[in-house]
């Protein structure tokens, strides 16, 4: 019904099953973090994997979405669902601004403009009073969903996060496999030809940039509601790098790759945290190995071997 091919359908069912049963085996907070980052990576993948636009500034949308959701939930007592949506909207608006400035540029110039703008957002966040600077926005209440269901319980929260993730994941899948998505892929493969066929490629790129930024904002908002805190970490440059890494490790341009990438990197981070600084080294080694042996990412490589699209 969502235009899944058979292998994709099977993969989706496996993912669905994993989402449902994994809380029985793993720490739900860690799983929620994985899902938030998976969403973030999927949003990023929508841009780099399907249109070929490499943004270096996605943390700005993720982090700002987090701040807005945290602020509106804490200061205005907004319903958590509305707070997350507010985060997504602000991410989209910010994406529109970024896109307006960057879309006309290609390749490295595009990347540099997004990087510069996200650094501006970062320094804005260190100074603006509503973000709490270094302290961040702390002790954000999870609140009650639709005013009724308390999210204090981790399993209730997990269910909400899982639903947000699955719905947005299907949305992304739908976008990618729609006629609109076909045009995006045409732009990725050969932009002048897409232009010559009569498509206003800049408009398409702009729209998908806003979508990607909005979904990143939703991911950030969800994360800050789950953890009850929004800080500079999420808006910092390193977070943009992290999401690139997740997407590349999992498989750029595959629909499930970013989810797998987020899963792998978050589990590594969680279980190697005792190593302290060595964690970053491990992450670097993984990245290098990935570049050397799985240039298309884990799922990308697998899909190529099996000659299917995942």
């Amino acid at each position: 019904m969502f235009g899944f091919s058979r292998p994709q359908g099977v993969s989706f069912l496996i993912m669905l099953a994993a989402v449902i049963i994994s809380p029985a085996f793993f720490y739900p907070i860690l799983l929620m973090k994985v899902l938030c980052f998976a969403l973030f990576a999927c949003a990023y993948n929508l841009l780099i994997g399907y249109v070929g636009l490499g943004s270096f500034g996605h943390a700005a949308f993720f982090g700002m979405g987090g701040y807005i959701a945290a602020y509106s939930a804490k200061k205005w007592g907004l319903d958590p669902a509305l707070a997350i949506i507010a985060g997504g909207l602000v991410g989209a608006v910010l994406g529109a601004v970024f896109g307006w400035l960057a879309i006309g540029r290609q390749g490295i110039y595009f990347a540099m403009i997004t990087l510069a703008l996200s650094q501006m957002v970062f320094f804005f966040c260190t100074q603006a009073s509503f973000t709490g600077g270094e302290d961040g926005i702390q002790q954000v209440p999870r609140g009650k969903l639709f005013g009724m269901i308390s999210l204090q319980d981790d399993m209730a929260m997990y269910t909400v996060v899982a639903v947000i993730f699955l719905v947005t994941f299907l949305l992304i899948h739908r976008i990618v496999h729609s006629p609109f998505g076909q045009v995006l892929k045409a732009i990725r493969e050969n932009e002048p030809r897409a232009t010559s066929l009569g498509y206003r490629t800049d408009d398409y790129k702009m729209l998908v940039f806003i979508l990607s930024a909005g979904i990143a904002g939703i991911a950030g908002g969800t994360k800050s509601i789950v953890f009850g805190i929004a800080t500079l970490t999420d808006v910092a440059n390193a977070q943009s790098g992290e999401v690139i890494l997740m997407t590349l490790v999992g498989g750029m341009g595959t629909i499930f790759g970013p989810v797998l990438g987020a899963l792998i990197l978050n589990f590594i981070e969680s279980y190697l945290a005792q190593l302290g600084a060595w964690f970053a080294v491990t992450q670097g080694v993984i990245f290098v190995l990935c570049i050397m042996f799985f240039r298309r990412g884990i799922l990308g490589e697998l899909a190529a071997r099996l000659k299917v699209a995942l």
Partner: protein
Amino acid sequence: MSLSRRSLLGTTAAAATAFGAARSGRAQAANTIKIGVLNDQSGPYRDTGGVTSVACTKLAVAEFAAKGFNVEVVAADHQNKPDVGAEIARQWYDRDGVDMIIDVPTSSVALAVAGVAKEKNKLHINVGAATSDLTGKSCAPSLIHWCYDTYMLAKSTGGATVKAGGDSWFFVTADYAFGQQLQKDTTAFVTAAGGKVMGSVAYPFPGTTDFSSFLLQAQASGAKVLGLCNAGGDTVNSIKQAHEFGVKMKLAAMLMFITDVNALGLDVAQGLTLTESFYWDLNDRTRAFTERAKKVTPNNWPNMVHAGCYSGTLHFLKAVADMGIEAAKKGTGTAIAERMKAMPTDDDAFGKGSIRADGRGLFKSYLFQVKTPAESKGKWDYYKVMGETSATEAWRPLADGGCYYLKS
């Protein structure tokens, strides 16, 4: 069909590898008390806390002859990031069965961890962080703040500096919860004593290593006293650079530890006044404690945070033994905190003390002056005692804190 079966196999294999790396850590021995030391092990506060805090916590555990239960110590680096700290705390309390988290320097992280401790009703003994909000507007029934805070530092060092003629101040402040609170508390004492504040500048934390522009700004203000509202490596760097630039102002390091003096060397640090609640050479008991501590941390002698980790852990274990292990494991963090408050503290590092209803640990505070190289007789012989404030005088009065659970 064969295609989809292969893809199925492939995806399951990928999923299995990722899942196989994980393990469930829920099993928890019923008679093991688990202590988590959470602090900065790689950044600017690694010497003031860091591995020496872990060593002193373990020392307390070793000295506390096991009374029918085992004690396990785990440690982690919070990288001075509130989100990292809160996440580790959550995981420790929820998943790893940690009963008490100790140390947690960096006030921004401390406030986040205190929030988690309050939400989960688990015990947190804060030693490393300074903000007086931990027993004020961010207090929690399961939170205890051990041996120093911004109020006590401001009262002792700030008050003494104004009395010695330093009546106009300029602050260089680390721009987060701790620096801001310390500046606020110090300003209150300076103005109350008739001094005035000529200005202040806040620098980004963490990550600032070049203080020159802030120091020149301070010198240009014409104030007599340069108040440093920072800590650890930042304090060391700013004092060093003030020395190199030949800044003529009197330096007031509002928070400084003996470990910082050691890093600076007496040539640069001599003459500074500072406040700590512990010094190794105070009396026979502190010397005895330091002799034992030196065996586990020979190159970094304990400062008040390290001594506080020892003292706090010891008192916690005494309270657990007093309650009985079963009651302690079953009980809430608040229950253990209440037992700790009900018992007077007594150990070699701080002598006799107590914990107030709002979680404030009450100990004497000492005003020290750093010795000149000529006065120093040996390794770590750095301080002259200039004065002491009794445990009843040193801290913010109970009524002024505004701790919510006392009002009922």
